[in-house]
């Protein structure tokens, strides 16, 4: 009976089922994260009143639907760097705000719930919004990656690298779409960087290399094959 209900739910609303499973996972890990939070606060050796303020921030965040594990790394980072409590509070507030913005953005994005159901992708979106990219671009990348949520991190890392390297944003987006449509796995995405470095050494313009990549990606079976067919 239960199996049938789950099967029916899976057929009718797979997204909702995924989100329910995500929440179930969070509930299962809740005692553990509470312990981690207590342990982290104890490690920070804050005065009791500041400890209470920080704990309250986490409680407020949880009430807004932000799981403790998404904020915990920021606290641990602050403790490791011996950041004063006031600055840490501000950093946590900012992180919570970014996570809420990221959630709103992913909810609005078609297929974005697949990314939202993965805490790492949610946190990644918040990181991208923290100044790395404008919200419109993050939304675009999230939309591209909706079909391959597991490759969200390598895809967005590559995109940031390409833009920082000097590739036109439009070209980088075209390339990312072609990669996500290809048979290459996310861990093979950096092959684009290899092709650009090697191609540049051969004095091939990046735009010509992108053109070749766009032509060959649909049929590429592996990163090695792609390199062999593009570079002289």
């Amino acid at each position, binding site marked *: 009976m239960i199996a049938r209900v789950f099967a029916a739910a899976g057929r009718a609303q797979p997204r909702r089922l995924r989100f329910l499973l995500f929440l179930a996972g969070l509930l299962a890990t809740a005692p553990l994260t509470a312990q981690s939070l207590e342990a982290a606060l104890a490690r920070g050796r804050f005065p009791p009143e500041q400890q209470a303020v920080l704990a309250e921030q986490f409680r407020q965040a949880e009430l807004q639907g932000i799981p403790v594990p998404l904020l915990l790394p920021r606290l641990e980072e602050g403790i490791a760097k011996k950041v004063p409590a006031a600055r840490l509070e501000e950093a946590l507030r900012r992180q919570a705000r970014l996570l809420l913005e990221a959630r709103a953005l992913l909810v609005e994005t078609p297929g974005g719930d697949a990314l939202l159901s993965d805490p790492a992708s949610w946190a990644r979106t918040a990181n991208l919004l923290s100044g790395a990219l404008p919200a419109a671009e993050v939304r675009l990348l999230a939309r591209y990656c909706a079909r391959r949520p597991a490759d969200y991190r390598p895809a967005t890392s590559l995109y940031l690298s390409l833009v*920082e*390297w000097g590739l036109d944003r439009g070209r980088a987006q075209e390339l990312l779409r072609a990669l996500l449509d290809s048979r290459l796995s996310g861990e093979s995405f950096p092959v684009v960087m290899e092709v650009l*470095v090697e191609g540049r*050494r051969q004095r091939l*313009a990046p*735009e010509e290399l992108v053109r070749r990549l766009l032509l060959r990606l649909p049929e590429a079976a592996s*990163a090695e094959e792609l390199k062999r067919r593009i570079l002289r």
Partner: protein
Amino acid sequence: MHKTRLTVIVLFLFGFLGSIAYGYPPTLLLGLQGGGTAFESPEDGEGALPLAALSLLAGWRNPIPAGGYWGLAASARLLSYFGSPIVSADIERLALDAGLPIGRSLVELEGGLDASVMGDGEDPAHVHPRWQAGLRFGGETAQGIFSYRGSYLYQPDDDGDFLYQGLRLGAEWERSLRLGLAAGLEFGWEYWPEYWLLDGLGAFTGVARQDVVGELQVGLDGLAGFFLDWSLEACAGLRWSTANRFITGLGLEEDSENHLFAAIRAAADWSPHRAVGLQLEGFLRQEWYLTRAALTEAPFADTGESLRVLSLGMTVRADWTPNDRLFLVLEGSAGRRFANDPAEERWNASLQAGVEYSFP
């Protein structure tokens, strides 16, 4: 017969034009560099000379359906050393390679030619055709490679001509783009038709020299973060030769070319921005001769030691481009050869700056 020939021509043209339509535009690069070189060797003595170089490079890569490709690359480089008299050198290269998929395997064919009319600065005038055929088999992450390679070095003004025939068995493991591993074992045979063995009086016997060479190779390569590509290769092997030599005052020395060798080469290629490229390459090679004596300076005397030679070198290249067409290039290189025989010792260093233009 006539019909068959016509069909072959039509098929050839169809395939050729088809691959052009499917392929990329050819690339053409023109370079002009100037700089200087300093050197010391037993043959040329010690010196420093200004130099100028003109280079031309053309490439054409064409993928073919079902995962194959063929490519053609040709280059020519003319160097002039402004001494008294002006000395010129030239290097020409032609390479054709193709990969033809057969099922899950790939047949790799390569042919090429290295040539020099005036000498390339190290070797005299020569023509060196090379050919290779191999089969790459296996999955996407691990592959085996079996290949045959051959070459013939023809030097009209020297007796160093030789024919090489070799077989190589290798494996490559692409663990990830961050780390790839390769290993190979190569055996080859060389026939030196103009290098005749000598008798006890130093006279030619008419018997040509023959060598066998065995070499074990290992390599690592990968992408280390942001647009940084690196590779590390090492090899070790043995050359076993029938060659001998006659030293005035010392007599005939048998097996003079037999030696063990080990080498390591490292390279890194980094482009922190599309406008900037940096390349670093270094190598180190040690040779241990088994019977060849290390000699003193003339008049030659046996030092009682076998010859040992250590060669090392490094090249650094940097370039900047404002528009992906015009490249400003700066290149420095240095090499040194240490040995326990003064006739084998030498060094050189050079610094060059120039421009390269990639035609649209």
